[in-house]
Protein backbone atom coordinates (compact mmCIF):
# COMPACT_ATOMS: atom_id res chain seq x y z
CA UNK A 1 0.00 0.00 0.00
CA UNK A 2 1.13 3.51 -0.74
CA UNK A 3 0.57 6.35 1.67
CA UNK A 4 -0.62 8.57 -1.12
CA UNK A 5 -3.93 6.94 -1.99
CA UNK A 6 -6.29 9.69 -3.11
CA UNK A 7 -9.84 10.09 -4.27
CA UNK A 8 -11.88 12.94 -5.69
CA UNK A 9 -14.34 14.68 -3.43
CA UNK A 10 -17.04 16.99 -4.74
CA UNK A 11 -18.90 18.82 -2.01
CA UNK A 12 -20.76 22.03 -1.32
CA UNK A 13 -18.74 23.86 1.30
CA UNK A 14 -20.52 26.90 2.76
CA UNK A 15 -22.54 27.21 -0.43
CA UNK A 16 -19.57 26.88 -2.79
CA UNK A 17 -19.10 23.78 -4.94
CA UNK A 18 -15.64 22.35 -4.49
CA UNK A 19 -13.92 19.42 -6.22
CA UNK A 20 -10.62 18.35 -4.73
CA UNK A 21 -8.39 15.32 -4.70
CA UNK A 22 -8.02 14.27 -1.06
CA UNK A 23 -6.02 11.61 0.67
CA UNK A 24 -8.28 8.69 1.55
CA UNK A 25 -7.12 8.87 5.16
CA UNK A 26 -7.59 12.65 5.44
CA UNK A 27 -10.04 13.75 8.09
CA UNK A 28 -12.64 16.38 7.32
CA UNK A 29 -10.76 18.72 9.68
CA UNK A 30 -7.53 18.30 7.71
CA UNK A 31 -9.38 18.84 4.43
CA UNK A 32 -11.07 22.02 5.68
CA UNK A 33 -8.06 23.50 7.43
CA UNK A 34 -5.08 22.43 5.34
CA UNK A 35 -6.54 22.03 1.86
CA UNK A 36 -9.27 24.67 1.82
CA UNK A 37 -7.73 27.10 4.33
CA UNK A 38 -10.90 27.15 6.43
CA UNK A 39 -9.14 27.36 9.78
CA UNK A 40 -12.20 28.48 11.73
CA UNK A 41 -12.77 24.81 12.50
CA UNK A 42 -10.39 24.02 15.35
CA UNK A 43 -8.74 20.83 16.55
CA UNK A 44 -8.08 19.93 20.14
CA UNK A 45 -8.78 16.51 21.66
CA UNK A 46 -9.04 14.71 18.30
CA UNK A 47 -11.20 12.15 20.09
CA UNK A 48 -14.58 13.76 19.28
CA UNK A 49 -15.09 14.60 22.92
CA UNK A 50 -14.35 18.33 23.12
CA UNK A 51 -16.47 19.61 20.22
CA UNK A 52 -14.16 22.36 18.89
CA UNK A 53 -14.15 20.69 15.46
CA UNK A 54 -17.96 20.54 15.16
CA UNK A 55 -19.24 21.20 11.63
CA UNK A 56 -22.47 20.29 9.86
CA UNK A 57 -22.71 17.71 7.07
CA UNK A 58 -26.11 17.74 5.35
CA UNK A 59 -27.29 19.64 8.41
CA UNK A 60 -26.12 17.01 10.91
CA UNK A 61 -23.42 17.84 13.44
CA UNK A 62 -20.22 15.81 13.14
CA UNK A 63 -16.76 15.89 14.71
CA UNK A 64 -14.51 16.83 11.81
CA UNK A 65 -11.53 15.30 13.66
CA UNK A 66 -13.03 11.82 13.45
CA UNK A 67 -14.77 11.95 10.09
CA UNK A 68 -13.25 11.10 6.74
CA UNK A 69 -13.08 13.88 4.17
CA UNK A 70 -14.05 11.18 1.67
CA UNK A 71 -17.44 10.97 3.36
CA UNK A 72 -18.48 14.50 2.39
CA UNK A 73 -18.40 13.52 -1.29
CA UNK A 74 -21.74 14.57 -2.75
CA UNK A 75 -22.78 16.30 0.45
CA UNK A 76 -23.17 19.78 1.94
CA UNK A 77 -20.76 21.05 4.57
CA UNK A 78 -21.27 24.09 6.80
CA UNK A 79 -18.49 25.57 8.91
CA UNK A 80 -18.27 28.66 11.09
CA UNK A 81 -17.02 30.63 8.09
CA UNK A 82 -20.44 30.19 6.50
CA UNK A 83 -22.47 31.67 9.35
CA UNK A 84 -22.04 35.41 8.81
CA UNK A 85 -23.18 37.15 5.66
CA UNK A 86 -22.01 40.43 4.13
CA UNK A 87 -24.77 42.17 6.06
CA UNK A 88 -23.30 41.22 9.39
CA UNK A 89 -22.90 38.51 11.96
CA UNK A 90 -25.28 35.59 12.26
CA UNK A 91 -27.73 36.15 15.17
CA UNK A 92 -25.93 33.42 17.13
CA UNK A 93 -22.58 35.13 16.65
CA UNK A 94 -24.05 38.50 17.63
CA UNK A 95 -25.62 36.92 20.69
CA UNK A 96 -22.28 35.38 21.74
CA UNK A 97 -20.76 38.88 21.51
CA UNK A 98 -23.63 40.52 23.39
CA UNK A 99 -23.58 37.90 26.17
CA UNK A 100 -19.78 37.81 26.53
CA UNK A 101 -20.08 34.11 25.75
CA UNK A 102 -16.40 33.70 24.97
CA UNK A 103 -13.06 34.46 26.50
CA UNK A 104 -10.22 32.91 24.51
CA UNK A 105 -12.64 31.97 21.72
CA UNK A 106 -11.07 28.65 20.79
CA UNK A 107 -14.20 26.61 21.54
CA UNK A 108 -16.55 29.19 20.03
CA UNK A 109 -16.75 27.88 16.43
CA UNK A 110 -17.75 24.46 17.75
CA UNK A 111 -20.38 25.90 20.07
CA UNK A 112 -21.76 28.06 17.25
CA UNK A 113 -22.12 25.12 14.89
CA UNK A 114 -23.73 22.88 17.51
CA UNK A 115 -26.09 25.70 18.46
CA UNK A 116 -26.93 26.16 14.78
CA UNK A 117 -27.86 22.47 14.53
CA UNK A 118 -29.90 22.67 17.73
CA UNK A 119 -31.91 25.75 16.72
CA UNK A 120 -32.73 24.27 13.34
CA UNK A 121 -34.28 21.19 14.90
CA UNK A 122 -35.69 23.03 17.90
CA UNK A 123 -36.20 26.79 17.38
CA UNK A 124 -37.58 27.21 20.90
CA UNK A 125 -35.35 25.16 23.21
CA UNK A 126 -35.57 25.21 26.99
CA UNK A 127 -32.45 25.94 29.02
CA UNK A 128 -32.29 22.20 29.74
CA UNK A 129 -32.48 21.40 26.00
CA UNK A 130 -29.55 23.72 25.32
CA UNK A 131 -27.44 22.23 28.11
CA UNK A 132 -28.19 18.70 26.98
CA UNK A 133 -27.41 19.37 23.32
CA UNK A 134 -24.19 21.23 24.06
CA UNK A 135 -22.91 18.81 26.70
CA UNK A 136 -20.45 17.38 24.19
CA UNK A 137 -18.67 20.73 23.89
CA UNK A 138 -16.02 21.83 26.33
CA UNK A 139 -15.04 25.40 27.24
CA UNK A 140 -11.91 25.57 29.37
CA UNK A 141 -12.44 29.24 30.20
CA UNK A 142 -15.50 27.83 32.03
CA UNK A 143 -17.94 30.20 30.45
CA UNK A 144 -20.85 27.82 30.14
CA UNK A 145 -23.56 30.02 31.67
CA UNK A 146 -23.12 32.91 29.21
CA UNK A 147 -22.97 30.41 26.34
CA UNK A 148 -26.32 28.91 27.32
CA UNK A 149 -27.81 32.39 27.70
CA UNK A 150 -26.41 33.43 24.32
CA UNK A 151 -28.06 30.47 22.60
CA UNK A 152 -31.40 31.14 24.30
CA UNK A 153 -31.21 34.84 23.39
CA UNK A 154 -30.33 34.03 19.79
CA UNK A 155 -33.25 31.60 19.63
CA UNK A 156 -35.60 34.41 20.71
CA UNK A 157 -34.12 36.78 18.13
CA UNK A 158 -34.32 34.23 15.35
CA UNK A 159 -37.92 33.33 16.16
CA UNK A 160 -38.83 37.01 16.04
CA UNK A 161 -37.01 37.56 12.77
CA UNK A 162 -38.86 34.84 10.87
Amino acid at each position, binding site marked *: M*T*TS*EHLNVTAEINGVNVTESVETRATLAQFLREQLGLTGTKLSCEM*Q*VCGVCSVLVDGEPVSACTYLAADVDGRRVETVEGLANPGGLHPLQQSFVDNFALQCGFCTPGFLMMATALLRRNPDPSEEDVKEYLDGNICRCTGYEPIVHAVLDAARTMRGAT
Partner: protein
Amino acid sequence: MPLPAFTLHRPRSAADAIALLDEDCLAYSGGTELLMAMRMGLIRPTALVDLKRIDELNTITLGADRLLIGAGASHDRVAGDALVAEHAALLATAERLVGNARVRAQGSIGGNICFAEPRSDVATVLVALDATVLLQSASSRRSVPATEFFLGPYWTAREPGELLTAISIPLPAPAGVYLKFQTVERPTVAVAAVALPEGGYRIVVGAVGDLPVSADYAQLTAVDAADLAARVEPVSDLTGSERYKRHVTEVFVRRAVAALAGGR
Protein backbone atom coordinates in the same frame (compact mmCIF):
# COMPACT_ATOMS: atom_id res chain seq x y z
CA MET B 1 -2.14 12.82 14.58
CA PRO B 2 -2.81 11.54 11.03
CA LEU B 3 -4.61 8.29 10.35
CA PRO B 4 -2.55 5.45 8.90
CA ALA B 5 -3.13 4.88 5.18
CA PHE B 6 -5.83 2.52 3.95
CA THR B 7 -7.94 1.75 0.91
CA LEU B 8 -11.60 2.80 0.97
CA HIS B 9 -14.29 0.64 -0.66
CA ARG B 10 -17.80 1.96 -1.21
CA PRO B 11 -20.06 -0.96 -2.12
CA ARG B 12 -23.77 -0.45 -2.81
CA SER B 13 -25.04 -3.82 -1.56
CA ALA B 14 -24.54 -5.90 1.58
CA ALA B 15 -23.42 -8.85 -0.57
CA ASP B 16 -20.67 -6.75 -2.17
CA ALA B 17 -19.57 -5.52 1.26
CA ILE B 18 -19.46 -9.04 2.71
CA ALA B 19 -17.33 -10.26 -0.22
CA LEU B 20 -14.67 -7.73 0.79
CA LEU B 21 -14.58 -8.31 4.56
CA ASP B 22 -11.73 -10.14 6.24
CA GLU B 23 -9.27 -9.63 9.11
CA ASP B 24 -7.59 -6.69 7.38
CA CYS B 25 -10.58 -5.24 5.61
CA LEU B 26 -13.08 -3.88 8.13
CA ALA B 27 -16.65 -2.65 7.98
CA TYR B 28 -16.84 1.10 8.48
CA SER B 29 -19.89 3.25 9.09
CA GLY B 30 -19.86 6.30 11.37
CA GLY B 31 -16.23 5.77 12.31
CA THR B 32 -16.81 7.22 15.77
CA GLU B 33 -14.97 4.33 17.41
CA LEU B 34 -13.02 2.76 14.53
CA LEU B 35 -11.21 5.90 13.35
CA MET B 36 -10.14 6.69 16.92
CA ALA B 37 -8.81 3.17 17.41
CA MET B 38 -6.94 3.45 14.11
CA ARG B 39 -5.45 6.80 15.07
CA MET B 40 -4.19 5.29 18.31
CA GLY B 41 -2.70 2.37 16.38
CA LEU B 42 -4.90 -0.18 18.15
CA ILE B 43 -6.37 -1.43 14.87
CA ARG B 44 -4.46 -1.41 11.59
CA PRO B 45 -6.74 -2.37 8.72
CA THR B 46 -5.40 -2.20 5.17
CA ALA B 47 -8.88 -1.33 3.87
CA LEU B 48 -12.23 -0.05 5.07
CA VAL B 49 -15.60 -0.99 3.59
CA ASP B 50 -17.91 2.00 3.86
CA LEU B 51 -21.43 0.75 4.62
CA LYS B 52 -23.16 4.14 4.43
CA ARG B 53 -24.13 3.79 0.77
CA ILE B 54 -25.92 0.49 1.32
CA ASP B 55 -29.62 1.32 1.62
CA GLU B 56 -30.66 -2.16 2.75
CA LEU B 57 -28.62 -1.74 5.96
CA ASN B 58 -30.46 1.45 6.82
CA THR B 59 -34.03 0.26 7.10
CA ILE B 60 -36.16 -0.20 10.21
CA THR B 61 -39.01 -2.62 9.57
CA LEU B 62 -41.77 -4.35 11.49
CA GLY B 63 -42.15 -8.10 11.02
CA ALA B 64 -44.90 -10.38 12.33
CA ASP B 65 -43.30 -10.77 15.74
CA ARG B 66 -40.04 -8.82 15.52
CA LEU B 67 -38.70 -5.34 15.00
CA LEU B 68 -35.73 -5.33 12.61
CA ILE B 69 -33.27 -2.48 12.85
CA GLY B 70 -30.69 -2.17 10.09
CA ALA B 71 -27.16 -2.13 11.46
CA GLY B 72 -26.35 1.08 9.62
CA ALA B 73 -29.07 3.16 11.27
CA SER B 74 -27.58 6.05 13.23
CA HIS B 75 -28.31 6.49 16.92
CA ASP B 76 -30.38 9.57 16.05
CA ARG B 77 -32.35 7.64 13.48
CA VAL B 78 -33.18 4.86 15.96
CA ALA B 79 -33.99 7.38 18.70
CA GLY B 80 -36.42 9.24 16.46
CA ASP B 81 -38.00 6.34 14.56
CA ALA B 82 -41.77 5.93 14.99
CA LEU B 83 -41.66 2.10 14.91
CA VAL B 84 -38.95 1.98 17.56
CA ALA B 85 -40.90 4.47 19.71
CA GLU B 86 -44.03 2.33 19.44
CA HIS B 87 -42.54 -1.14 19.83
CA ALA B 88 -39.23 -0.77 21.67
CA ALA B 89 -39.42 2.56 23.47
CA LEU B 90 -36.66 1.62 25.89
CA LEU B 91 -34.17 1.41 23.04
CA ALA B 92 -35.21 4.86 21.83
CA THR B 93 -34.68 6.19 25.36
CA ALA B 94 -31.15 4.81 25.54
CA GLU B 95 -30.28 5.94 22.01
CA ARG B 96 -31.28 9.52 22.82
CA LEU B 97 -28.61 9.49 25.54
CA VAL B 98 -25.67 7.92 23.67
CA GLY B 99 -22.37 9.84 23.69
CA ASN B 100 -22.93 13.37 22.47
CA ALA B 101 -25.05 14.90 19.69
CA ARG B 102 -22.31 14.37 17.09
CA VAL B 103 -21.79 10.73 17.98
CA ARG B 104 -25.56 10.22 17.75
CA ALA B 105 -25.65 11.77 14.28
CA GLN B 106 -22.56 9.94 13.00
CA GLY B 107 -22.44 6.61 14.79
CA SER B 108 -24.48 3.54 13.83
CA ILE B 109 -26.18 1.11 16.18
CA GLY B 110 -24.43 -1.82 14.48
CA GLY B 111 -21.02 -0.23 14.78
CA ASN B 112 -21.65 0.50 18.43
CA ILE B 113 -22.24 -3.12 19.33
CA CYS B 114 -19.62 -4.59 16.96
CA PHE B 115 -16.98 -2.39 18.59
CA ALA B 116 -18.23 -3.81 21.93
CA GLU B 117 -16.99 -0.98 24.11
CA PRO B 118 -18.06 -2.35 27.51
CA ARG B 119 -19.80 0.89 28.46
CA SER B 120 -22.22 0.75 25.51
CA ASP B 121 -25.70 2.05 26.33
CA VAL B 122 -27.07 -0.01 23.45
CA ALA B 123 -25.66 -3.32 24.70
CA THR B 124 -27.31 -3.01 28.11
CA VAL B 125 -30.72 -2.38 26.57
CA LEU B 126 -30.41 -5.08 23.89
CA VAL B 127 -29.76 -7.67 26.60
CA ALA B 128 -32.84 -6.42 28.49
CA LEU B 129 -34.94 -6.72 25.31
CA ASP B 130 -33.76 -10.27 24.44
CA ALA B 131 -32.49 -8.97 21.12
CA THR B 132 -30.62 -11.08 18.62
CA VAL B 133 -28.17 -9.91 15.98
CA LEU B 134 -28.09 -11.15 12.41
CA LEU B 135 -24.66 -12.04 11.07
CA GLN B 136 -24.11 -12.77 7.42
CA SER B 137 -21.03 -14.10 5.66
CA ALA B 138 -20.46 -15.15 2.04
CA SER B 139 -21.57 -18.69 2.91
CA SER B 140 -23.87 -18.46 5.93
CA ARG B 141 -26.41 -16.50 7.90
CA ARG B 142 -26.89 -16.86 11.62
CA SER B 143 -28.79 -15.24 14.41
CA VAL B 144 -27.01 -14.78 17.74
CA PRO B 145 -28.64 -13.70 21.02
CA ALA B 146 -27.16 -10.48 22.41
CA THR B 147 -26.09 -12.37 25.54
CA GLU B 148 -23.94 -14.67 23.38
CA PHE B 149 -22.78 -11.93 20.99
CA PHE B 150 -20.89 -9.92 23.60
CA LEU B 151 -17.90 -11.97 24.74
CA GLY B 152 -15.78 -9.32 26.46
CA PRO B 153 -14.39 -5.81 26.04
CA TYR B 154 -14.03 -5.10 22.30
CA TRP B 155 -14.74 -8.77 21.62
CA THR B 156 -17.85 -10.26 20.01
CA ALA B 157 -18.92 -13.53 18.41
CA ARG B 158 -18.70 -11.92 14.96
CA GLU B 159 -16.15 -13.59 12.68
CA PRO B 160 -13.92 -11.40 10.46
CA GLY B 161 -15.81 -12.41 7.29
CA GLU B 162 -19.21 -11.66 8.81
CA LEU B 163 -21.26 -8.49 8.54
CA LEU B 164 -23.76 -7.59 11.23
CA THR B 165 -26.73 -6.70 9.03
CA ALA B 166 -29.52 -6.11 11.54
CA ILE B 167 -30.67 -6.21 15.13
CA SER B 168 -33.83 -8.16 15.77
CA ILE B 169 -36.04 -7.41 18.77
CA PRO B 170 -38.78 -9.91 19.65
CA LEU B 171 -42.23 -8.40 20.13
CA PRO B 172 -43.93 -7.53 22.32
CA ALA B 173 -40.74 -5.98 23.72
CA PRO B 174 -40.70 -5.42 27.47
CA ALA B 175 -41.30 -1.91 28.74
CA GLY B 176 -39.24 -0.41 31.48
CA VAL B 177 -36.71 2.17 32.52
CA TYR B 178 -33.11 2.91 31.64
CA LEU B 179 -31.12 4.87 34.20
CA LYS B 180 -27.45 5.67 34.14
CA PHE B 181 -24.84 7.58 36.06
CA GLN B 182 -22.46 9.36 33.76
CA THR B 183 -19.80 12.03 34.23
CA VAL B 184 -17.82 11.56 31.00
CA GLU B 185 -18.64 10.37 27.47
CA ARG B 186 -19.79 6.96 28.59
CA PRO B 187 -21.75 5.74 31.61
CA THR B 188 -20.11 4.64 34.86
CA VAL B 189 -23.12 2.44 35.59
CA ALA B 190 -26.21 1.79 33.46
CA VAL B 191 -29.29 -0.10 34.63
CA ALA B 192 -32.18 -1.34 32.51
CA ALA B 193 -35.19 -2.58 34.48
CA VAL B 194 -38.06 -4.12 32.52
CA ALA B 195 -41.31 -5.97 33.10
CA LEU B 196 -41.17 -9.10 30.95
CA PRO B 197 -44.19 -9.74 28.71
CA GLU B 198 -44.50 -13.33 29.96
CA GLY B 199 -44.45 -12.09 33.56
CA GLY B 200 -41.61 -11.32 35.93
CA TYR B 201 -38.90 -8.72 35.78
CA ARG B 202 -35.40 -8.38 34.42
CA ILE B 203 -32.61 -6.16 35.70
CA VAL B 204 -29.55 -5.62 33.50
CA VAL B 205 -26.53 -3.83 34.90
CA GLY B 206 -24.23 -2.61 32.16
CA ALA B 207 -21.21 -0.35 31.65
CA VAL B 208 -19.73 -1.01 35.08
CA GLY B 209 -18.03 -4.33 34.20
CA ASP B 210 -16.72 -6.09 31.12
CA LEU B 211 -20.14 -7.52 30.21
CA PRO B 212 -23.73 -6.70 31.14
CA VAL B 213 -25.01 -8.69 34.13
CA SER B 214 -28.62 -9.79 33.76
CA ALA B 215 -30.97 -11.31 36.33
CA ASP B 216 -34.66 -12.26 36.17
CA TYR B 217 -37.03 -12.13 39.12
CA ALA B 218 -40.60 -13.31 39.65
CA GLN B 219 -41.43 -10.24 41.70
CA LEU B 220 -39.98 -6.75 41.69
CA THR B 221 -39.70 -6.95 45.48
CA ALA B 222 -37.32 -9.90 45.02
CA VAL B 223 -34.68 -7.74 43.33
CA ASP B 224 -31.64 -7.69 45.59
CA ALA B 225 -29.64 -4.57 44.72
CA ALA B 226 -26.80 -5.48 47.08
CA ASP B 227 -26.51 -8.91 45.51
CA LEU B 228 -26.31 -7.42 42.00
CA ALA B 229 -23.73 -4.91 43.19
CA ALA B 230 -21.69 -7.81 44.54
CA ARG B 231 -21.99 -9.72 41.26
CA VAL B 232 -20.74 -7.04 38.88
CA GLU B 233 -17.02 -6.80 38.24
CA PRO B 234 -16.26 -3.08 38.16
CA VAL B 235 -13.18 -1.78 36.43
CA SER B 236 -11.39 0.84 38.52
CA ASP B 237 -10.56 3.91 36.48
CA LEU B 238 -10.68 7.69 36.58
CA THR B 239 -14.47 7.59 37.04
CA GLY B 240 -14.19 5.64 40.27
CA SER B 241 -12.76 2.80 42.32
CA GLU B 242 -14.23 -0.67 42.39
CA ARG B 243 -15.82 -0.01 45.80
CA TYR B 244 -17.36 3.26 44.64
CA LYS B 245 -18.78 1.68 41.49
CA ARG B 246 -20.36 -1.15 43.46
CA HIS B 247 -22.01 1.48 45.63
CA VAL B 248 -23.29 3.40 42.60
CA THR B 249 -24.53 0.12 41.11
CA GLU B 250 -26.57 -0.67 44.22
CA VAL B 251 -28.05 2.82 44.32
CA PHE B 252 -28.97 2.81 40.63
CA VAL B 253 -30.51 -0.67 40.78
CA ARG B 254 -32.70 0.54 43.66
CA ARG B 255 -33.64 3.69 41.76
CA ALA B 256 -34.46 1.74 38.60
CA VAL B 257 -36.65 -0.68 40.55
CA ALA B 258 -38.42 2.23 42.26
CA ALA B 259 -38.94 3.95 38.89
CA LEU B 260 -40.30 0.78 37.33
CA ALA B 261 -42.61 0.17 40.30
CA GLY B 262 -43.78 3.78 40.22
CA GLY B 263 -44.49 3.69 36.50
CA ARG B 264 -46.83 0.73 36.71
